[in-house]
């Protein structure tokens, strides 16, 4: 279900209906809108982390395909060492992917952008599935020790029908980014 929100009429932008009784759905919708909001703030999205994870993911698919090929074409007892090696490599890659998803510098990372050569990393979460507050943390450059943080109640950026008010959302994020300069 789609409709044009009042706030985005002039942009001809369709806002997606979100189940406003689900905190996870609201968070996902807000996360999905981060790239376009930051694009409006002048940031270019940096896909290097996403692309690395995708490349590693598809490498594990290739390893599984290789194991399947071995199973269909060779006897198990002739290929045990190769199977063991392939599973070891698979586990190492999964470990690296886990680090890139759950490591302290990567956990809950939803957006990385660059503006004038300066990197920005945005981390978002909700405390629980019953806490309708969007917690946003922005790290500038590699300064992970002192991020800028804010809490945005979903009631401030979603209307009663579950449509995201992009202008309001953008204003909150703009204010957050501006905090760095203060």
């Amino acid at each position, binding site marked *: 279900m789609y409709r044009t929100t009042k706030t985005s009429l002039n942009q001809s932008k369709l806002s997606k209906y979100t189940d406003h009784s689900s905190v996870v759905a609201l968070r996902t919708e807000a996360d999905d809108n981060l790239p376009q909001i930051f694009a409006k703030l002048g940031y270019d999205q940096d896909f290097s982390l996403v692309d690395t994870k*995708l490349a590693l993911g598809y490498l*594990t698919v290739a390893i*599984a395909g290789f*194991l*399947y090929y071995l199973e269909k074409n060779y006897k198990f*007892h002739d290929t045990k060492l190769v*199977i063991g090696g392939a599973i070891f490599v*698979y586990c190492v890659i999964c470990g690296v992917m886990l680090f890139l998803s759950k490591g302290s510098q990567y956990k809950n990372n939803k957006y990385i952008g660059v503006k004038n050569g300066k990197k920005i990393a945005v981390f978002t979460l909700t405390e629980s599935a019953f806490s309708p507050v969007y917690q946003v943390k922005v790290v500038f450059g590699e300064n992970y020790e002192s991020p800028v943080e804010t809490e945005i109640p979903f009631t401030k950026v979603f209307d009663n029908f579950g449509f995201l008010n992009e202008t309001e959302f953008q204003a909150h994020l703009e204010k957050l980014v501006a905090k760095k300069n203060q």
Partner: protein
Amino acid sequence: MNLREQLTQLLTLAYVFLSAFVAWKALGLVTNSHSPIVVVLSGSMLPAFDRGDILLLWNRDQQARVGDIVVYEIADKSIPIVHRVLREHHSTEKQLLLTKGDNNMQDDLPLYAKGQLYLNQKTDLVGTAKFFFPKLGYVTILLTENQYFKFGLLGLMGISAVLTSE
């Protein structure tokens, strides 16, 4: 939806099968068996095992003992057979086994390949049954033997996928 999102979704879907398959291969390495879990398909081992029981195999024993329940494969027959060791002969180099289903009238000689009198413990065994889970594998029997069940399940999965995406 952009290409990266599509690739990510495809990867997430692939991982459902991928992780299960790699776990299966890893279990095969640990147990030294190309098929470490098998489903009992016939009633030849009643009352010990019934159709649909799932067996966990172990293939690192140096020798099988009389009374062990083993799973073996015969050349050119794709379905593994779960039967009990009835007789064994061994030297320092190899062990020969004769097997029989508990619920069968005679030993497995007619089931073996033409001219084969015994099973070779090293080359013919898939593994020895160490644990079993009763009836859990019956769904695979239903899937292979009952067309109505197979297509009914596929239909349910399709409806579920459509409703979830809505």
